[in-house]
């Protein structure tokens, strides 16, 4: 198999991209650069922020609260929105509705 650039159009990948776009908008609203957000999260580099915003990484569960506070969001609704993007089926089972 040859190495190739993927166009990851699966539902999961698309949903992660939407989460990334949402996070980027939140960061813009909070007036933070990727560097500043990384600083608030205690990260050594800001590359992970970019990875998440570009839809290739997820906000880890154990840092969701820190992300939400850094972005000025209420932790529970922040986590709920991310869950709707990262685990839509789990979200539907828990809350009985599609995102």
């Amino acid at each position, binding site marked *: *198999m040859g190495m190739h650039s993927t166009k990851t159009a699966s*539902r*999961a990948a698309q949903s992660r991209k939407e989460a990334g776009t949402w996070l980027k908008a939140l960061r813009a609203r909070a007036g933070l650069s990727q560097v500043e957000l990384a600083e608030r999260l205690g990260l050594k580099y*800001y590359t992970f922020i*970019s*990875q998440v915003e*570009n839809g*290739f*990484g997820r906000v880890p569960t154990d840092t969701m609260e820190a992300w939400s506070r850094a972005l000025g969001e209420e932790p529970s609704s922040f986590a709920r929105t991310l869950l709707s993007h990262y685990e839509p089926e789990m979200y539907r089972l828990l809350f009985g509705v599609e995102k």
Partner: protein
Amino acid sequence: MTVLQFPPCDGTRWQRAEMNALIAACGESLDKGTVTGWEIGETERGEPQLYLVGPAPDYECVLCVSRLGRLYVLEDGSGRILFEHDALGRLGEQVRGALRHKKAAIVARATVLWLAIKETFEERIEPMLAEPVEVLSQVAPQLVALV
């Protein structure tokens, strides 16, 4: 913690030598399906990022390589820093090693899942299957007596 920042360098795109080294490092994982492809992105400041993508259906990021100034940063899909160095040769070795480790982790998780399913089957299903056999063993002698 102070976030490390780097002045933007001239050639911010991935160079051919860098891509060749990274692609070569992924060969084994591509054959085995741990990595199915790659995508390119960049940070807000324009530094290039390369995302090695895992299998369908999720296409999760397996590894992310970023170049900040002259420094390469290798992270997994959870943002854990695996390597930071300015030598391309060493980056290739680290990518190869990290992908092998990733495959071992997947195998370990699959084994744990299989054992959990097996245990559940043995605990719950086997007693249910054993019950009719037990009843039959009690009734059989009486049936034999009737014949």
